[in-house]
């Protein structure tokens, strides 16, 4: 896809885009788009003695890998064999892959308060998979793709600006090693934050000049608090 000729995609109105929430930081896991199969699976006539799966298995549905008995959903436009079972308000089971080789993943899913700001249409969830706490945001793919286009327009005219360095852990600032005007190199220690009795050194994310410092020693900080601005 060339940048000057954006491909206009027909978006299934039922499709959803799921992305990691901002709290997940720098984790490089791309958002995914899920939609029901483009051609709906034909509802099988009731067969005595078989359940829903049995019915589907006997239906020569499009998009269904040969010999498979599971449900197919489109993930990023490709078919994937996935089943999802909501056990109760908190517990669910994700079954990935076809047949006997399917991997079963119990998950815990809890709602999260919406973030402040323009988050209309965005649902947030905390999903715990294999002990990992994953924050996700779900929205309509149609809406998300519109927003993407708007952002690309903005970015075309944007330029490199100052970097706001914010707290990634709550704690107490115990040492500040820089003052405004200092030149720093990537990796240089800027602050020391004490949390749970451990001292955590905050290092410069890139080369630059300290524009301002928002905290001093002794200051208690929360996640997201502005610590300093790097130019």
């Amino acid at each position, binding site marked *: 896809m060339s940048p000057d000729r954006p491909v206009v995609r027909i978006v299934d*109105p*039922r499709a*959803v885009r*799921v992305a*990691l929430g901002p709290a*997940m930081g720098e*984790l490089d*896991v791309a*958002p*995914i788009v899920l939609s029901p199969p483009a051609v709906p699976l034909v509802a099988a006539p009731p067969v005595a003695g078989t359940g*829903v*799966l049995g019915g*589907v298995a006997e239906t020569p549905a499009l998009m269904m890998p040969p010999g498979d008995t*599971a*449900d197919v*959903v489109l993930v990023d436009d490709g078919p994937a064999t*996935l*089943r*999802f*079972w*909501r056990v109760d*308000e908190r517990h*669910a*089971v*994700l*079954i*990935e892959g076809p047949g006997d080789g*399917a991997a*079963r993943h119990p*998950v*815990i*899913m*809890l*709602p*999260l*308060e*919406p973030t402040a700001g323009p*988050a209309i*249409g965005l*649902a947030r969830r*905390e*999903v*715990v*998979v*294999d*002990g*990992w706490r*994953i924050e996700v945001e*779900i*929205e309509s793919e149609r*809406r998300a793709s519109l927003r993407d286009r708007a952002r690309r327009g903005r970015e075309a005219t944007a330029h490199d600006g100052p970097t706001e360095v914010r707290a990634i*852990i709550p*704690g107490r600032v*115990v*040492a500040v090693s820089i003052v405004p005007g200092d030149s720093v190199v990537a990796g240089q220690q800027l602050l020391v934050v004490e*949390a*749970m*009795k451990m*001292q955590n*050194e905050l290092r410069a994310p890139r080369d630059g000049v300290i524009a301002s410092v928002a905290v001093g020693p002794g200051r208690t900080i929360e996640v997201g608090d502005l610590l300093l601005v790097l130019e």
Partner: protein
Amino acid sequence: MATSRSRSAPSLRKDGGPPFRRVLVANRGEIAVRIIRACHEAGMEVVAVYSDADAAARHVRLADAAVRIGPPPPTESYLRIDAIVEAAIASGADAIHPGYGFLAERAAFARAVEAAGLAFVGPSSTVIEALGDKLHARRLARDVGVPVVPGTLDPAAVDRPDRLVSILAEADRIGFPMLVKAAAGGGGRGMRRVATASELPAALAGGSREALSAFGDGSVYLEREIVPARHIEVQLLGDATGRVVAIGERDCSLQRRHQKLVEEAPAPGLTADERRHLHDLAVRVAAAAGLQNAATAEFLRSPDGTCSFLEVNTRLQVEHGITELVSGLDLVREQLSLAAGRPLSAEALAAASRAADPAGHAIEVRITAEDPARDFTPTPGRVRHWVMPAGPGVRVDTALEAGDRVPPEYDNLIAKIMVHAGSRAAAIDRLRRALDETEIAGVQTSLPFHRFVARDASFADATLSTGWVGERWDGPAAIRRAARLGLLAAGLDALDADQATARAVGASPLPATSVPGAASADGRWARSGRAAAGDRWPR
């Protein structure tokens, strides 16, 4: 101030009855709960102390009385010797149990407790001074012929830049890589790893600053880093007659940033003779120091089987529970009895005689509020969902419940999950099962790391070393796998929520307080998932 609930006085037993009438527990969290349980079982009343962050904590609710000692920062609450001794006197306690951490290894605290005419449940102030000072302990071990890890025997003069040249010369003699360690230390605080001489000045300053903040004493020293090594420690008990016994050893090799993550008892792969030899080294150091009550001697074991003395912790260890599981001895109850001046109990002597031949195998994992994908950085917050494992051979020591906050001011240990079985292999099976039952949401914990350990072949082979975590664990890769599954689950949930909701996602926000699909039990994916699950789950 103190509120008191009445509890019927327990009757005197043949062993002379409860060692004390009322015990103040100068700690918080799971260890305070653990000690309260032992006191109540032995028929003693308990006074809890708490900071404002813990006013409604479980240890406060379990105690018979509770005294507020200050605001959340430890220096203004759990580290305040005057406030705690005053609380003990005001509430009529006759003994103080310090737990671990906080004031447990401060000789000044033990001295203040002794001066107030109260019993200190732990070694005396003089023994804490002798063994708690890591440098003194190293000299003591050398004097009784116990091999020590190479390093300095005097504190490094971090506040004297003019002495830097001599420190660097000393460092060259010891050899790199080395560790800067806090003389008053423990738990990895104040510790820094130094690979080259150029890193040393910064490590000395940083380590000293952290040590000062954590222990009120900024003295640091240098010690060679022995890699690969196993960290093995010996549980010791001593009484007023001068008798010191070993109750068994623990392997604590799985560490991250010098904090233990997994411990097991006994140490795998040692012969009974090797165990006896190690126990003997530990007893020798402790006896030379005149140990009374409980302590733990720590050793590094090189691949060739050589054990070098590291330090003695003059307190109850976090991981004492696994020794209790394989020895059958209640170490906290024994501590209380010893603190009352009684000799080692018959149970303790019997456990000591079986120390080289323990009953089965126990493993503990420390569930901490730390992110194992981001180098185990702290993750304080509110626990939204909390299910701990149970069933045969499982013991959980925790003070947390769903809805509780993990405060940023204190240690990040939130639960100890221990398993006990007839063999190491069976204990690992049991651990895997127990961790699969464990459910925590709201804060990221070390749970994914522990699930990995319980399934890892090299852990099953007991190929352990203090470098194991860094070599085997790839947290970022593990969380990426989980993140993709999380995205799929959330997406399927949204698709599965009835068609109307799926269409409405763009038009109106999903209600944040209710989960779409939770109530609509007849969504397409729900139906098929249930059927599939039903097929594989016997009913």
